[in-house]
Each structure stands twice: as structure tokens, then as C-alpha cells.
């Protein structure tokens, strides 16, 4: 077998692709984003013909993780047992105790109709469904941080465009600067790589500059960017604070007057359009005409007015930035015409208080005292010690590395500050990478970047969005042939089981990464030392609660009380209405439903791809395996973990049931790929081995099990359609009554098309049709934007299709309105701007939070909802909703469950009694977050809840830890493909070996065969890498970690040395790749290596990054801080051959 890819130089209509005679620049077509196969695809034969491919269904009978406990069972038996366990669980706990976990086939759309196992698990959970989750592992904090300011350009950055049209402004030279706050696009998204390379090539050719700001100069940086500005990981926000400081001091003199000599900031703009940069009084704004009232209007109603909460002088962003610098305390709002700084908004504020300053001295508390009068020495938190420090470029340089420099030194902080403020350097496109937000304070990074864009007035211009053509539904990418109907359409009469389940309303969602915590909530009693659960890998968990994170979505998984019809009951406690929970036998404690069953349709989330592999696996081992006792699957209380997998991956090893999946080449598939918006059929090219089967067959087997179990009844309601649902699914109900492969249907369709003279496939053979379905699209004729306001067809316009692309966007029109308004002094001083409707748009950008996706208002106690701050209609660098949501979300579901330090909801307090979550994007020093996560504060022992030296305080004082990120790897991206030898050799090496020195082919992930049902095979190696287990020096290979040349020299580490990387969470063995592409102080261990703890010493020889990542949730939103680690590295001395 060999892999080929689209090699056609001609489109479906016969036109040459990339031809010079089409509209273009410099005789080159830019809108041909034809993607070619990445190395993963090229290596596919070693995936299909891997000796470790799973062939049979397995069931764990001893202890999770004990390979000898797996016995082989028929698929049908596995399905029946899983379906039975599901029914028992939902009968007792409702659907909320079951989760179809995020991951392959479960996180994103369009991953296949018949090959993926989504349909199979939907069948297994068909009677009532499951609890649903919000967020995703890729973009969790991006989703949260993105809407906080309301900036329209924040919608589409992340280089994740949906059409090449977004690249044209860059290609055409409209974009002056691209600033990548991290970028790894070429590696992460192969399908977008070529279009991205071309865009940057042209951007540079036309004088544009591309800035890469980050700790690791990725391949994307090397190829695409002109400048690498070194910035330590996790410190983006500090850099931005210093840039804003530089802008303020170049705008206001020491007496608070706006300097007349080229001020950096447009103060009238800030007063008008940006909320919370400066202080502002409580006010009301009339939605009909934008008029501002500083006392509540008599005719106030919530529909006619927006109430905007006060931003106290000491709590605005500028107060935090300026620290003890007093100039802004003298910069008063004015209601008189004082030339350039007179504007309507300022006049209104001054009308309420003529002494109102634009900022006061910082008053956020430090150990309960306002910062301006607190003793900074009293706190252990670096960020609080820094509260009163002016956030100067020199302050930031010490933290970030980025040199403070001067305005003429390209890439220095002062240069960047001036660049952002210089209209001649606009438009500036800002993008970020996954790693920019997968941090302890990642959503704050995104907020800070968008705040920078708001403050510097970079919005509404052509070129503010840019994106590689992403391989999903690219309606304007030229790749798909979407205009023709050459495709073999999906048969409408199959794939429908016809079942109707029982609904169970008012169930809260759970954060997609909090499932592990909900398992702890349910099974806390088993997490004991006696059962082998030490808890030591979560050093900041004091174990006084059943759960680790004080997260509302987890606490909401208690069993709620319902009436006979299934409706939730409520109860009133202290004047607030909560959903009533069921009490346990003691009449007081709740019934901790938590999560008791998880079905994984593929992917490594449950061990490898979630934070803290050691803790997860300890937990799985400590909780009894479902089938340790005979017929355990009939126990509603037990924990049941199910996965579909291709290999005995780290995740499969810890499951109760493992179902043998197939790779895409063994599956019938109806799917889109390569940027195509339309799906088409692809027959299997290789037969699966053993009982392994594709999603179609697995869904059939699952419905078969449901059919055998019959209808299901709860809340007095009964399901329908389960009888023969399996036959309905494959379309043979009432006819043959047999299983029918999905290819039969497509073959019939093809046979029809072959005979149809109007069909494109007329006269072909089946083979020819299958090979000929892919027909490249023609070059398209997208516009080339060349002027500022032509931000056409952006997300802000609400439409990316049809005529919208030829019209000015809403954002572009508002910008145009704003520029006119600011230039017209009479209007600017006397008339409002925000909420005014002119030229067909209302001049407003609505900041929000990730409110609707996580339950929003309905999850908050009715009595509290009215207190939620409203959007100001201006860009919000202060957003009170952030703090409110943190404290109140899910309160209606868990008000009874008082968080420590509060009567209700999530405690918004750190151990010194100050806030954890603030309404502004402050820089939280990463060391503070690591000290929290690793229990390393000197003066507080989280485990004991008392003042004492933290058990891991020493980690921070000695050993000189380095920050470590876990960027996507070129040869794997995530964890799948780590088994592939063609790819392993590109990022693994033998100890002391050079490039491609390792070759553990057939010594890696080879699972033993089981010949008979019910048999358990002996595993010769408890490790996935038998080469490492056997200490074969010539073949044992370890994953590379990237480290800086100076850091390596300091530690006497040479390129190729086997090293130990450790922190209080875990330890891994890896090979040092010594390079200048990592800045000093920083390591990069590409994520996705397979967790492979060595029984000799517990060190992970698989180099799984998550072994070093704490369970610590991100600050604002309980997201996955999966690129957030602080570690030591040294030469390995204990492992000898």
C-alpha cells in the first residue's frame, strides 16, 4: 500500500489550477489552497498494518490497568453489558451520571458519518441520552476570553479562517503588521499550511512585517515571520501591560494633562468607546439615542436603558497599570471644552463629579488592605506585591525577557507600544495559538491581547482577520467542488434507528474537562491509601471535599429530586430558590451521583490527553473495576469506562471495556476532507482483522443490544422504537431482517449512476467512480480588499457568504462612523456615539462572557440574576460579568453546597482572603499559579489548611525550574500516531543518538493475541515500549524535549542526552534536543507522547507531557491549563543499560 494525494493540476471544470490567466497579483493565483498530504497521512500504512492493532473486544475483570485482567469477549456481549450498565445507571441516577466524553468523533463535527463511533455510543445511550458538556480541549479559554471585550476582530483570529478571502488583504499589502502571540499553524493544521505560507510570502514581499512573540520559534515562525520577539511563556499579559504603560506616559504628562506633541493614545476615543480603561461612574444609557444619564432616569426600564456599573478609580485597568504613578489621578474628566480631550462621555461623567479622575491609585486589596495603603511585604503572591509597581517596560523585561529597549529598536517593548498606536502601522492583524490560552491564566492572555486591540483602535479595518483555509466547511475556500452535483449522495433511508427516548430536562452541563472531578465526587470513598490512591499528584487538594476543583459544574452533578413526571423540584433556603437534591440515608448528605459511566468514541482524553496522567490512573485503579465481581455491569453504582480504540493505548489500558476500532482505511466512510464542504463516499480499502469493525457495524451491534433489552421506562414514560432498531438502522427492517454493510447501499447508488447517461459517472466501472469522486474546485474570483474600511464578509457582519462579502461589514461601518464622529468636534462634544444608529448600523459592540454555553442565567438562582452586570455597549477592558459569573454560575444547582469561605457558589478568594478573579486582565505571575497548583507557598499548607511551610516550597527555591510548554508536534499533533514507526523516528532518539537513531518498530505497542473467547493473554512487557522495558540500547528510544543552548550548558546537558524532567506532579524521561529555537528559561515537550510509566521507578518513559501538567484549572473559567508547567531538568543518572 502506498499513499497518494490530490495531484491534479486541473479543476473539475477542466480549468488549470493556479493558471496565470485568471485575476491575480503578479501572475500567481492565491486562491488555490490545494492541500497535500502531511507526513501522518504518508505514514498511514504502518498504522493499518501495525502488529498492535486491536482485534477483539476486551473486558477488564481484575483491576483497571492490570493487563492480565482483560479477557476477550464477543462484540455482542460487550454491547449488551454496556447497554445494561447504562440502563441501570440512568434508572437510579438519571442521565446526568453518564457522559459521552469529548474526543475524536465527539468534539468536532464532520469527522465521518459511518466510520466514527459517535453513532455507536449514541445507540448505547439512546434510552435517555447523557449529560452534555461545554467547551473543548483545544479552545476552552479562547472561547471564554474571546467575547470579553466585544472587539470584532477577536471573533476570528487564532488564524482559524474559514476562507482564503480572509488572506487577501494580507496578500494585497493592506495589512502592515501581523502579530502572532504564538503561532504553530503550519504544524497543527496541515490543510491550511500552504495557504498560510503563500499569504505570509506575499505579505513580506509587499513590505508587511510579521512578528512572532513567544518562547519557542516554531516552524511557522521560521518560515513565515520576519521577527522573533522572545517572550517567556505565560507572560504575554505583562508585556501588554508594559505596552499600555508606555502608551499612557506618552499621552499624559506628570500633571495629568494630555500632551500636545503626538500623544500615543486618542483619549476622546478611549472615553467614548472603551469601558474600564479609565474609571467611570455608574450610569444609564438610553438605547434609543445613546444619551447618558448619571442618575437613574425616571422612565427607567431594563428594555429601554442599559445600566452600566461603576468602575471605581482605583479598580480600572489604568490604575493597575500605573501603580504608584499618580499622573492619572490628576487627569480629570472635564465638562468644559478643553480642546482635544473634550467629548460627550467625559462631559457627562464630569457633570456628575467635576473632580472625577480618569484613574485613582490602585485599590484592589492586598491581604484585605487597599493596595495603595497595604504593605506589599505582607503577601506571598508576586502579583499582589507588584500591584503598586508601575508596569514599566523595564518591569516587564525582567518578567518576560522581551527587552524594554527604545522606540527605534524593532521588537522592543517601547517599539511595539508605538507601533500599535501609529495609524500608519495599521491594520495590525493579531493572532494567537492554542498555547497562548492553554495556561493557568490563558483566558486572561486572550483578554489582554484584545484589550490592547481595543485601546489602540485597531478594529473595523480590512485585514484585521486572516486565516489559513481550515479543513472544515470552507464555503469560500477554493478546494471543494461544491457547485457541482457529482457526488454520490447519502441514502436517506439508512442510518436511522427510529428510536425515541425519554427526555430529562433542566440538567446542567459540565465543563468538558471536569469529568475527572465528577468521578471523584461519586467515588471519593474509594480514593484511599489502602486502595493505592495517594492523592500526591494533586498537591493542592486538601481532600476535605469529595471533589478537587471548587467548580459549580461538578457540584451540580448531585442527584436532583424530581417529581413522578421527572420535573425538578425546588426548595428555598435563606430566601433563595435552589433545585432540591436527594438526601442520602442520613437525611442530610446529598446523593453524589457524579459521573458513573463514560463512553469514549476514540481519542486519548481519558488518560493521555488530560492533565495529570499519574493521578488519573491512580484513581482508576483505586475504584473497583466494574466487572471485578461477576455481573458487575448490573450494578448501577459502579464506575464503567468504555473506549473504542485501535491500539492498546494508554487510555485503553485503564478501561473496563475496550472495543476494537478500525482506521479510516478499513472503514466505509461518508465524509468530508481536505477542506471540502460536501461529503462523499469512500469504500474500505483493507479488511478489518478479527472482530474489529467500523462505526456502522458497531452502531448496529449497539442497537441490537438495545433491541434485545426492549423498551425502557422511567418517570412513567416509555421509550419507543427499540424493537428491531438495529434493522431499522441498516435499513433491513421488514425486509431481509439482516445486517447489511453500508457499502451495499453505496454500491447500488453507484450502479445506478453508471447506467444514467446524465451522470458524470456514466459508463464507468465502480472502481473508476470511487477513484473519480474527488474533483478539485476551480479557482475562484474572490475580491481583493485594498482599502481600510472594506472589512467585508467578516464574522462581525454576521454573514460570510453571498452578497455580504461585497458589502462593508458592520464593524467597518462602525469604525467609519467613529472616525467621522471623532473628527467632528461639535458632534463629539455634544452628541453621544455609542448606541446611536447611523448609516444602517448601531454603534455598539457588546461584550459578553461565555455565558450561554455553560448554562448561563438558568443555572443561577432566580433571586441573584438581576445583579449581573450589563454590557456597556463599549469595548470592555473591565468586565464585571467575569467576576459575577465566577461567583454565581450553577448556584441554582448547588447553593446547598457551600464552597469554603462563602455561603454559596464558588469561592472567589485566595488563601490570603483577596480575590482570585478580577474584572480586569491583570498579569498574574505564573509563579503564583504554580505555587498554588504545587502547594508551594511558604506560609500556607493547603493540605492541612493551616499556616505552615508548603510541602513543595523547596521546589521553587532550588533547582532553577524552567517553564515548559507542550506545543503540537509536527509528526503527531495529538496522541494518535505515536505508535507509527515512520513518525516515531522523526521525534524519538536512542540515548546519545542522533536524528532518527531509534527504531522500535515491532517493539512498541504490540498487544498479544487472544485466540479464544474468555481467554487472558500473558503480556511480556508491562510497558508499551518493550524496548525500554528490556533496556535494549540500540532500539529503545525516547521523545525529544527542546531546550535552550545556554540552559543546557548550565546543566551540563548535551544534545542527545537522556534527561529526567520533574516537578511535584510527575516525572518523565526524554532526550534533550539542544536548540536556540527555545529561549532561555523555557522548555518544550511536544504533547501526545504515550504515557508509559516504568514499573522500576514510576518515571514516565513515554514522555507524555500531561504527566507533568497539574490538575489545576485555569483562573477565570476552570479550563484546561495543559501547556502550563514549571519543571526541573537534569541528566538522567539512575537509568542504566
Amino acid at each position, binding site marked *: 500500500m*502506498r499513499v*497518494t*494525494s490530490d*495531484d491534479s493540476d486541473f479543476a473539475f471544470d477542466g480549468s488549470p489550477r493556479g493558471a496565470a490567466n485568471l485575476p491575480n497579483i503578479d501572475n500567481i493565483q492565491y486562491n488555490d489552497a490545494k*492541500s*497535500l*498530504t*502531511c*507526513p501522518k497521512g*504518508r*505514514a498511514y*500504512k*504502518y498504522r493499518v498494518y501495525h502488529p498492535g492493532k486491536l482485534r477483539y473486544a476486551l473486558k477488564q475483570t481484575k483491576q483497571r490497568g492490570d493487563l492480565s485482567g482483560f479477557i476477550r469477549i464477543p462484540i455482542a456481549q460487550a454491547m449488551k453489558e454496556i447497554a445494561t450498565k447504562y440502563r441501570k445507571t440512568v434508572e437510579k441516577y438519571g442521565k446526568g451520571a453518564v457522559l459521552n466524553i469529548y474526543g475524536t468523533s465527539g468534539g468536532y463535527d464532520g469527522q465521518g458519518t459511518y466510520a466514527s463511533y459517535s453513532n455507536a455510543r449514541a445507540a448505547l445511550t439512546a434510552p435517555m441520552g447523557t449529560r452534555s458538556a461545554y467547551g473543548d480541549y483545544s479552545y476552552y479559554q479562547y472561547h471564554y476570553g474571546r467575547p470579553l471585550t466585544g472587539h470584532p476582530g477577536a471573533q476570528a483570529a487564532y488564524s482559524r479562517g474559514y476562507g482564503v478571502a480572509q488572506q487577501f488583504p494580507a496578500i494585497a499589502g493592506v495589512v502592515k503588521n501581523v502579530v502572532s502571540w504564538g503561532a504553530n499553524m*503550519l*504544524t497543527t493544521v*496541515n490543510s491550511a*499550511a*500552504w495557504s498560510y*505560507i503563500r499569504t505570509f*510570502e506575499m505579505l513580506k514581499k509587499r513590505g508587511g512585517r510579521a512578528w512572532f512573540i513567544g518562547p519557542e*520559534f516554531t*516552524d511557522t*515562525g*521560521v*518560515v513565515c*515571520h*520576519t*521577527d*522573533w*520577539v*522572545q517572550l*517567556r511563556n505565560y507572560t504575554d499579559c505583562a508585556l501588554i501591560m508594559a505596552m499600555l504603560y508606555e502608551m499612557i506616559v506618552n499621552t499624559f504628562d506628570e500633571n495629568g494633562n494630555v500632551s500636545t506633541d503626538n500623544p500615543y493614545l486618542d483619549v476622546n476615543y478611549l472615553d467614548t468607546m472603551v469601558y474600564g480603561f479609565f474609571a467611570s461612574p455608574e450610569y444609564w444609557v438610553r438605547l434609543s439615542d445613546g444619551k447618558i444619564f448619571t442618575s437613574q432616569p425616571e422612565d427607567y426600564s431594563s428594555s429601554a436603558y442599559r445600566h452600566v456599573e461603576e468602575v471605581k478609580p482605583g479598580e480600572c485597568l489604568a490604575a493597575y497599570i500605573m501603580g504608584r504613578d499618580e499622573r492619572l489621578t490628576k487627569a480629570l474628566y472635564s465638562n468644559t471644552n478643553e480642546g482635544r480631550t473634550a467629548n460627550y462621555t467625559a462631559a457627562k461623567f464630569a457633570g456628575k463629579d467635576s473632580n472625577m479622575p480618569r484613574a485613582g491609585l490602585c485599590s484592589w486589596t492586598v491581604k484585605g488592605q487597599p493596595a495603595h495603603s497595604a504593605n506589599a511585604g505582607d503577601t506571598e503572591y508576586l502579583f499582589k506585591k507588584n500591584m503598586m509597581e508601575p508596569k514599566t517596560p523595564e518591569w516587564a523585561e*525582567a*518578567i518576560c*525577557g*522581551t*527587552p*524594554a529597549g527604545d522606540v527605534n529598536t*524593532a521588537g*522592543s517593548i517601547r517599539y511595539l507600544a508605538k507601533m500599535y498606536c501609529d495609524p500608519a502601522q495599521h491594520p495590525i492583524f493579531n493572532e494567537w495559538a492554542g498555547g497562548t490560552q492553554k495556561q493557568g491564566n490563558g483566558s486572561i492572555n486572550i483578554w489582554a491581547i484584545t484589550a490592547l486591540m481595543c485601546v489602540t483602535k485597531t478594529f473595523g479595518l480590512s485585514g484585521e482577520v486572516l486565516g489559513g483555509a481550515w479543513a472544515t466547511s470552507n464555503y469560500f475556500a477554493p478546494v471543494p467542488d461544491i457547485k457541482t452535483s457529482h457526488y454520490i449522495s447519502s441514502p436517506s433511508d439508512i442510518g436511522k434507528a427510529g428510536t425515541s427516548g425519554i427526555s430529562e430536562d433542566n440538567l446542567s452541563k459540565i465543563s468538558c474537562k471536569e469529568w475527572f472531578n465528577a468521578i471523584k465526587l461519586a467515588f471519593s470513598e474509594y480514593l484511599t491509601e489502602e486502595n493505592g490512591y495517594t492523592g500526591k499528584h494533586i498537591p493542592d487538594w486538601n481532600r476535605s471535599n469529595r471533589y478537587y476543583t471548587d467548580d459549580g459544574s461538578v457540584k451540580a452533578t448531585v442527584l436532583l429530586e424530581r417529581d413522578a413526571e421527572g420535573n425538578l423540584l425546588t426548595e428555598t433556603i435563606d430566601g433563595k430558590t435552589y433545585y432540591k437534591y436527594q438526601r442520602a440515608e442520613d437525611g442530610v448528605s446529598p446523593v453524589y451521583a457524579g459521573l458513573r459511566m463514560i463512553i469514549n468514541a476514540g481519542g486519548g482524553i481519558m488518560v493521555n490527553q488530560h492533565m495529570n496522567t499519574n493521578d488519573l490512573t491512580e484513581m482508576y485503579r483505586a475504584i473497583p473495576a466494574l466487572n471485578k465481581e461477576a455481573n458487575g455491569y448490573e450494578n448501577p453504582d459502579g464506575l464503567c469506562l468504555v473506549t473504542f480504540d485501535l491500539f492498546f493505548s494508554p487510555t485503553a489500558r485503564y478501561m473496563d471495556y475496550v472495543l476494537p476500532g478500525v482506521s479510516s482505511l478499513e472503514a466505509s466512510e461518508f465524509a468530508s476532507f481536505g477542506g471540502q464542504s460536501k461529503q462523499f463516499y469512500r469504500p474500505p480499502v483493507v479488511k478489518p482483522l478479527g472482530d474489529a469493525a467500523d462505526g456502522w457495524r458497531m452502531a448496529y451491534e449497539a442497537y441490537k443490544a438495545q433491541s434485545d433489552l426492549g423498551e425502557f421506562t422511567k418517570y412513567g414514560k416509555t421509550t419507543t422504537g427499540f424493537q428491531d432498531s438495529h434493522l431499522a438502522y441498516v435499513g433491513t427492517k421488514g425486509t431481509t431482517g439482516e445486517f447489511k454493510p453500508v457499502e451495499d447501499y453505496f454500491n447500488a447508488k453507484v450502479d445506478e449512476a453508471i447506467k444514467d447517461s446524465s451522470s458524470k459517472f456514466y459508463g464507468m466501472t465502480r472502481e473508476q467512480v470511487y477513484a473519480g469522486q474527488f474533483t478539485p474546485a476551480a479557482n475562484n474570483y474572490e475580491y481583493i480588499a485594498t482599502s481600510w474600511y472594506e472589512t467585508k464578509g467578516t464574522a462581525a457582519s454576521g454573514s460570510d457568504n453571498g452578497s455580504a462579502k461585497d458589502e462593508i461589514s458592520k464593524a467597518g461601518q462602525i469604525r467609519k462612523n467613529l472616525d467621522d464622529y471623532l473628527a467632528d468636534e461639535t458632534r463629539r462634544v455634544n452628541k453621544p456615539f455609542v448606541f446611536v444608529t447611523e448609516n444602517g448600523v448601531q454603534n455598539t459592540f457588546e461584550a459578553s462572557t461565555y455565558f450561554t454555553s455553560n448554562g448561563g442565567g438558568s443555572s443561577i438562582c432566580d433571586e441573584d440574576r438581576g445583579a449581573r452586570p450589563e454590557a456597556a455597549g463599549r469595548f470592555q477592558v473591565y468586565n464585571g460579568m467575569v467576576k459575577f459569573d465566577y461567583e454565581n454560575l450553577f448556584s441554582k444547582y448547588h447553593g446547598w453546597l457551600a464552597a469554603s469561605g462563602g455561603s454559596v457558589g464558588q469561592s472567589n478568594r485566595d488563601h490570603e482572603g483577596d480575590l482570585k478573579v478580577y474584572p480586569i486582565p491583570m498579569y498574574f505571575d505564573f509563579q503564583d499559579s504554580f505555587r498554588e497548583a504545587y502547594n508551594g507557598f511558604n506560609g500556607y499548607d493547603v493540605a492541612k489548611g493551616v499556616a505552615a511551610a508548603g510541602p513543595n516550597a523547596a521546589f521553587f527555591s532550588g533547582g532553577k525550574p*524552567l*517553564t515548559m510548554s507542550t506545543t503540537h508536534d*509536527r*509528526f503527531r499533533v495529538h496522541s494518535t500516531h505515536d505508535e507509527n*514507526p*515512520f513518525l516515531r*523516528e*522523526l521525534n524519538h532518539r536512542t540515548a546519545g543518538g542522533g*536524528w*532518527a*537513531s531509534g*527504531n522500535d*518498530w515491532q517493539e512498541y505497542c504490540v498487544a498479544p493475541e487472544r485466540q479464544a473467547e474468555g481467554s487472558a493473554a500473558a503480556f511480556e512487557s508491562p510497558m508499551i515500549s518493550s524496548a525500554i522495558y528490556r533496556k535494549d540500547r*540500540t*532500539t529503545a528510544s525516547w521523545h525529544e524535549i527542546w531546550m535552550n543552548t545556554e540552559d543546557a550548558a548550565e546543566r551540563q546537558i548535551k544534545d542527545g542526552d537522556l534527561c529526567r524532567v520533574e516537578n511535584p506532579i510527575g516525572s518523565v524521561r526524554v532526550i534533550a534536543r539542544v536548540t*536556540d*529555537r527555545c*529561549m*532561555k*528559561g523555557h522548555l518544550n515537550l511536544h504533547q501526545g507522547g504515550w504515557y508509559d510509566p516504568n514499573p522500576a521507578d514510576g518515571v514516565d518513559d513515554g514522555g507524555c507531557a500531561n504527566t507533568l501538567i497539574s490538575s489545576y484549572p485555569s483562573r477565570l473559567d476552570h479550563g484546561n491549563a495543559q501547556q502550563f508547567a514549571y519543571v526541573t531538568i537534569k541528566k538522567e543518572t539512575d537509568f542504566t543499560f
Partner: protein
Amino acid sequence: MAENKVQLGFYFDQTRCMSCNSCTVACKDWNQVNPGPVAWRKQFTYEINGKFFPFAMGCNHCEEPACVTACSYEAISKSDDGVVTVDRNKCQNLQACIAACPFAKPQIAEDKQEPNALIGWKIQHPMQKCTMCKDRLDKGEKPACVQACVGRALDFGNMDDLRSKYPDAVQVTPAEFPYLYVNNQNETKPSILVRKRSESSNNIVKAGARYQG
């Protein structure tokens, strides 16, 4: 080289190579080279004086191939289209070719990567190298590496055509690309043109003195 003969060669755009290794994997896939250290085409990002230079290179099918003249068994030959190939049946493990090639392109596998010798081989592991995918060229297809290049950094063809198609490209010489000459600096007239990445392609703004990292 005689007037009437053509010289096929490669073109490499160093400004576009994103180090994805699609070329190196496609090469192994197409040419049925097993997993292991031997790879006919390799890709590195070289680090020279703190700057970064990606390079993907297989055999350069030199105009004056040192390997051909080094082999006493006449196992290596240059065909009329300029492609340099090894007849693995003739190789007798002299390894003179390996010493002669400046670029370390002739390679020998070990037992694990090449467990079974073919009938006709005189030794267990005869030398192997890039054939420019002669089997594909014969069918009018591009070499696997060129066809696979996601970033369109690779091209191939008659060297004269490549010179006119890419007028800015430069020859590979020890002076221009010292880091490619890993074995020796023999003048072999390699059949590869390169759009060279400039030293100033990336301005690196290094961490300042106040940084405590």
C-alpha cells in the same frame, strides 16, 4: 556530460520549507524503505550562528558523481537523463561511495531495518540511495518527494529548465551551503538549485539583560 544528454535535478525553495517531512516520509512510503535510520531523503533545520535554515535533500544526482567513480565494482552508474542509480546486485560493501559523497547520501541499513536480503544480492545490506523515483518518472509522474511537498518548496526537472524557471536560485557549493557538506567538500556539481534563505530572514529580538529566566 555529452551535449545531447539531459541532466535531471531538483529545485529547493529554502524560504518555503516548513520542515514537515512529508517528503522524507513519502519517499520511504513510495520506495518501500522500512522504518529505521536509513532514509533516502532527509530534512533538517540547521542552526547557524543563531539563525535557522531548513533543508530537505536526497541524492543530488551530481553531474560529476563522486560515488560513481569511487565504486570499484561499477555498481553505481549515471544514466542518460543524469540520474545516478545503484545496482544493489553488484554492491560488495566496499563503502567507498559513502566516503566519497559529500552529502552522505549513499546509505547502508542494519538488520532490523532490512531483515531479509533479496535473491541476487551479494551481501546482506547493499548500499541504497535515491533513484529520483525512476519508476514514477517512467510513468510521467513527479518524484514522490516533489509531489508530496506541502509547501511547494520542491520541484524537479531538466536542470536547464530549472535554471530558467528559477533565475534567482543558486547552485549548491561549499561556500554557499557549508552545512550540507557533512562528509567532505568534493566538487561533484550537484544537480540541485536552491532559492536561498537569507541570513536576515528572521530578526531575532533576544531576551534583555534584566530577564531572570
